[in-house]
């Protein structure tokens, strides 16, 4: 199954959720959901590649670290990303994201994501064995 994503409601901010057949796929989906908070990911051309690594004591903190690493790259490089590959070994994550510099006219970026929070944070498998990775992001 290809990584999927969705948003879930939070009164002042927004929830991001990735779903997939593996933990990695769910993390990739959650990243795409972060981009979708800002713009339609289909409008983001995966032209340039950026690598990231992070490490955390458990899966949930690793998800937050991963999304925050992505938010940091978006903020400092002024880029948006639409394609992701994630590899997780133990509590370490290696990822590559593909994207392009922000084009305000074309992307119509709605809002800046300030950070991933621990609210509604969870990384787990549902009854069908599908991985779900989610948290609220502050905008």
């Amino acid at each position, binding site marked *: 199954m290809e990584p999927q994503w969705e948003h879930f409601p939070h009164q002042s901010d*927004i929830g991001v959720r990735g779903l997939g057949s593996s933990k990695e796929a769910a993390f990739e989906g959650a990243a795409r959901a972060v981009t979708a908070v800002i713009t339609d990911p289909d409008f983001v051309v995966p032209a340039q590649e950026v690598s990231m690594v992070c490490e955390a004591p458990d899966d949930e903190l690793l998800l937050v670290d991963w999304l925050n690493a992505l938010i940091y790259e978006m903020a400092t490089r002024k880029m948006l990303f639409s394609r992701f590959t994630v590899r997780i070994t133990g509590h370490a994550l290696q990822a590559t994201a593909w994207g392009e510099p922000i084009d305000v006219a074309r992307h119509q970026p709605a*809002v800046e994501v300030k*950070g991933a929070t*621990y609210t509604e944070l969870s990384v787990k498998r549902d009854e069908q064995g599908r991985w779900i990775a989610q948290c609220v992001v502050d905008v």
Partner: protein
Amino acid sequence: MDLNQLKRRGHDEWHISPRGKMRVPGVIYATESLIRDMDEKVYEQVTNVATLPGIVRASYAMPDAHWGYGFPIGGVAAFDPDLGGVVSAGGVGFDISCGVRLLRTGLTVEDLQPVKELLAEALFHRIPAGVGSTGLVHLDKREMDAMLAGGAKWAVGKGYGLHEDLECIEERGCMAGAKPDCVSDFAKKRQQDEMGTLGSGNHYLEVQQVVKVFDAEVASVFRIREGDLVVSIHCGSRGLGHQIGTEFLKRMAVSAARYHIELPDRELASAPINSEVGQEYLGAMRAGINCALANRQIVTHLVREVFEEVLPQATLSLLYDVSHNTCKVEEHVIDGTATRLFVHRKGATRAFGPGHPDIPPSLREVGQPVLIGGTMGTASYVLVGTKESMTLAFGSACHGAGRSMSRHQALRQWHGREVVKDLAARGILIRSPSMRGVAEEAPGAYKDVSEVVDAADDANLARKVARLEPLVCVKG
């Protein structure tokens, strides 16, 4: 929120008795209708905050309280370091020292009309706003550290604004105790191109008119009258604050067990005030406050430049600058004794009453100006701190309307272009790089700010002084 969980103690005061691991009661200030509309999560978050070590008196929620992360937005809590009190990165949040400042222009609405479009365009082009925007001020490492230590005072020293501005900013424009060394290189890098930018989301720059004065005596001290043209700026510490929040949230979540802090929600990530992590966070967070103060000061300078070109007869003077995401050391009377407390305000405004020494001398006799931001289609308010507020909630009041609808819902309900068109028909010019952003910030997605302000007034947290309505709004 289910009213059966609360005990009513006054028209606008509701108590949650301590239960389970709560160390103090919860207190919510709001009307019955605001309480009914509050998410059940506000109750959960108010009670969670009440379990943190060293909390004093109560865990408070303001009339605009809504579901936040860790603390409710609109949450106030104070901690005593001598009772093992904590400082919480989650209790301050990502947008450290986000706040509002209000500038008088010396002009009236009539002066604006001939140049309204011109002014809107000029402000939109001069003040960087929105995702990916960059400021005109770029700081090297040395200047970055000087800015983090000096705040608005640093900015004025660099030529951004006037010396007299500083008197009317909380902490007189420079938060003491900032430690730039405690701010990571990542946070500094995230800020290097973002000085003097508005940001996005609910941040804005508005040209407003004073449409009603409720308290002529206080308004006269604040030097505002009906018909006056004013400028309001709402923004914060930008990427630097976000990164400090991100990094310390993790450090505190991971170290909490070591300090025997039981977190009912990891987002309440805290550390003892008297600990290495706690002290480093305070040093970094205070640097974040200075970054926000410097940022609003630079934006003010840009606004003055635009007025100089478009309405040269204007004189922009600062009425006041408030921050609403902070942790500050303040003295409050607890059981008859003056006690040094670490007061967290998350989406809550400091609202000190008359005579408080931290209020500038020119305003001290009436109390601190409390600036409440509304939406681009409704109103903002100027209130004043009360004597009662000092005992009700450590001298605090609400900070804005608060969302009633998620961004997702708003996007399904409105189109940005229609919102802009509808508001233009009402005489409000909106300028934004993102129509999707405008739709998400549609006025209908927010609670009624007037009801929130009336509740704050009724509860004696702060008293209404004036109502401001937007004429021009630059949104990120």
